[in-house]
């Protein structure tokens, strides 16, 4: 008798069509790199094209099978970014090896990591049939997050690269546990805040126009966050500190619906940034490089080169393989956005930003339509932290804000980043599938009255 008023369409066909488009972008980019650098379409275009098609089809089939109602746009967007990133990393391998043939190539490794990332994505969709079950593991995730963050500080497995101690060695692989910690922390925040949101919002004292919650409500989450940020400061990881802080403040705001938390967050951020500027030389260096990069061209070579690359690209770009992005240090990881801007131009970089924007938009849409508070909070947190990450890293590279070390999601070379971002997409798809799936049909019996044991 009661049929749902509106059943969302699955739109898997649309997703397939968009996936084909995204794969075409990736393969064409790869072929264009070969044309630009070497004058011929590289022979292994077919190899990589085939790999990309397999990966995309597998992803599509998995979604079709285990999350049929999930958002149809997210996966194609991500595959497009991933394909562009792979092509650029391959292009930079060629460019860097032109100067020195011994330089390490990253493209193949990145392809392997992409496959691992998609496996992790599939695992999330298959293992987590209902995202609400994650809520039961709230504190576990909190503990895991802190454990992950401590790992790089452990002697033996921790590794310092370029002044930041945020890597661990696992046999042949190196991994940035901070990326995984971000997801764990988001789940912990969401799980905790869902339970405590009323207490946080209502119980407490009012000081200076802001309702402060009781210490026992705020305590655990504040502790979790403080430990995380403390560790990150210890590891000299500016970008992640900023990202975790933003995640914390925004989720607190969404959970309590109190804008006061944003004010508190902003004040704390300014104080923290000022303290960081006074206390840490590397923060000061970054800040000064942002204000006046040309004041010390030797030290600020990277940001200057990034800007030169962007300017060299101009409006329409140099074309795949025709610019000189390899001149910029870390053009394949931290500065891949500048590399894109150089070869694809302002037009290409804006398109990439639009893709990122669309991913954020889909994530927040999932949060809006989600029916349970935990899913809502988790989706909002993940989507916003994604937006924040894109803003911080691309803003840093293009000198909108001071440069901090963060990876460009789905494009930058680096295994942990790509795997964990695929995990985030997995979680978002899971929540979205749950949200858009029609409510299970409630069978109504003809003789309902008679089966009643107790009369009301």
């Amino acid at each position, binding site marked *: 008798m009661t049929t749902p008023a509106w059943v969302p369409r699955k739109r898997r066909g649309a997703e397939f069509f968009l996936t084909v488009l995204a794969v075409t972008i990736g393969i064409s980019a790869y072929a264009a790199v070969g044309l630009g650098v070497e004058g011929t379409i590289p022979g292994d275009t077919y190899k990589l094209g085939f790999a990309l098609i397999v990966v995309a089809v597998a992803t599509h089939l998995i979604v079709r099978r285990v999350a049929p109602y999930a958002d149809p746009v997210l996966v194609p967007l991500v595959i497009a970014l991933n394909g562009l990133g792979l092509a650029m990393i391959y292009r930079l391998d060629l460019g860097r090896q*032109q100067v020195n043939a011994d330089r390490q190539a990253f493209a193949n490794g990145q392809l392997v990591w992409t496959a691992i990332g998609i496996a992790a994505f599939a695992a999330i969709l298959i293992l987590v049939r209902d995202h609400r079950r994650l809520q039961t593991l709230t504190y576990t995730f909190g503990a895991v997050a802190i454990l992950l963050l401590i790992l790089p500080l452990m002697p033996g497995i921790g590794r310092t690269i370029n002044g930041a101690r945020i890597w661990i060695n696992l046999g042949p692989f190196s991994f940035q546990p901070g990326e995984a910690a971000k997801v764990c922390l988001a789940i912990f925040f969401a799980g905790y805040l869902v339970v405590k949101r009323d207490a946080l919002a209502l119980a407490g004292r009012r000081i200076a126009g802001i309702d402060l919650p009781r210490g026992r409500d705020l305590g655990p989450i504040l502790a979790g966050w403080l430990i995380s940020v403390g560790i990150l400061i210890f590891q000299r990881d500016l970008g992640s500190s900023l990202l975790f802080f933003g995640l914390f403040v925004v989720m607190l705001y969404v959970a309590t619906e109190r804008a006061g938390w944003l004010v508190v967050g902003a004040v704390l951020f300014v104080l923290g940034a000022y303290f960081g500027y006074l206390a840490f030389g590397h923060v000061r260096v970054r800040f000064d490089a942002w204000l006046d990069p040309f004041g010390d061209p030797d030290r600020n070579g990277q940001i200057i*080169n990034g800007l*030169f690359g962007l300017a060299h690209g101009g409006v329409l770009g140099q074309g795949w393989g025709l610019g000189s992005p390899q001149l910029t240090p870390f053009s394949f990881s931290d500065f891949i956005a500048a590399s894109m801007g150089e070869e694809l131009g*302002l037009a290409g970089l804006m398109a990439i930003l639009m893709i990122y924007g669309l991913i954020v938009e889909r994530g927040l849409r999932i949060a809006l339509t989600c029916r349970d508070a935990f899913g809502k909070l988790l989706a909002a947190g993940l989507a916003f932290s994604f*937006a924040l990450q894109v803003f911080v890293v691309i803003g840093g590279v293009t000198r909108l804000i001071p440069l901090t070390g963060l990876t460009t999601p789905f494009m930058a070379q680096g295994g942990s980043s790509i795997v964990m971002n695929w995990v985030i997409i997995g979680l978002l798809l899971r929540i979205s599938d749950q949200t858009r799936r029609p409510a299970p049909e409630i069978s109504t019996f003809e003789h309902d009255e008679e089966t009643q044991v107790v009369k009301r």
Partner: protein
Amino acid sequence: MNRPIRNIAIAALVLFMALLVNVNYVQFVQADSLNAKTGNKRVINEEFSRDRGPILVSGKPIAESVKSKDEYKFQRRYPDGKLYAPITGYFSYIFGNDRGIENTENGVLSGSDNRLFVNRVVDLVSNKQPKGGSVELTIDPLAQKTAASGLEALGEDTKGAVAAIDPQTGAILAMVTQPSYNPNRLASHDFSEVQKAWEQLTTSPNRPMSNRAAQEVLPPGSTFKLVTAAAALENLDMDPSDKVKGGRSLSFPGTSFKLPNQDGGNCGGDPITLERALNVSCNVSFGSLALKIGQEKLAEQAEKFGFGTTPLTQLPSNASRFAPVDRPLERTELALSGIGQFEVAATPLQMAMVTAAVANDGNVMKPYVVKTVRSPNLSILDQAKPERISEAMSPSNAAKLRRMLISTVDVGTATSARIPGVEVGGKTGTAQSTPDRPPYAWFVAFAPADNPKVAVAVLVESTDIGRDEISGGRLAGPIARAVIEAVLGK
């Protein structure tokens, strides 16, 4: 919880808008100024990888870009590197192209000149690498080679320069410097070699990268007597046959200083004619003439010939000077100035211009070295137009001075420039600088007298030859003659 989610969606939108606006600012608004920053390797690489246009002499390239297999795609080559280096300059990855035609005509050579805008658009549309235009020089290759081998013949350690111009147009026919350098070494793609070459060239006391013909200012000695003679004709209304003071030396009341003649002789009497004074390069005569003319008029005459200015704009050059001191000269100083000593200093190019003006009825022409500028498809973008800077002397006075210079070659000190069948006018110079170093040997000449085709100035700054044997006539004269012969095709 939807309200705060909507709010953070707006926040995310603001963040992305900020990113979009910022990349527009960097890649569109700031792009040009970033591209123009020094040390921007991308721009240097791009320019270095371009098919740069050639610099031509008589249709043959003296600087050209040939395909190379390395990452820069093109290699700049200078087939006659040393011979033309003072004119071409160099095109180096590390040190740029801040000298010579490579520098002054960079816009055309690199293809970035505004006149080549249409070509660039066509290249862009047809997806071709932009190509540079070509620059044709006024240099006469035979004169250039003759001048260079003349200096070389004096020995490896000889320092000197030759400048030859077409008196009627100002076109530079030869511009040679010794020692010179090999610009190929600076254009190499092996940057450590380039660095090494650069250090060697810039630290050498011989300054091989200086274009001595246009940059070195040295006392012109007796060749400056042309200026003094011109001033005498113009201001004292003299004739070649008018008498001037001769004798063994010029004394100055109140001082023990005496101005002697070069060889200690008496110039053949006292008084002698102005013509004879020039023929034998009589210091006494020109010293006393300078005193008669006065500092002001003499300086004015020098300026009319181009002293104090750098009329050659296409190559780095220095201004010649009459007297740098802004005060009345002592009588001794003025007399010395009249014979091209004291503080008088001139470039070979300046002395060639003086000679050319005498040959060209007193008209000083603006010297230039670029004849034609062409686009990559060979259409002419620019063609040199001869330009008169000033009238240094009246045509009749110029004719008088010309006759005196011809007789100087015929019967005077400049006989080493004699060419059978051609009327050559010339003047020697042997200039003292300091007692501890050998004198500078100068020679200026022009030919033919009735329709001047070439005016040349030769400077031998130092050489291995013993100091007693150094004289303008002996060292520099034969080179001047050879250059004239090369231009006239004799």
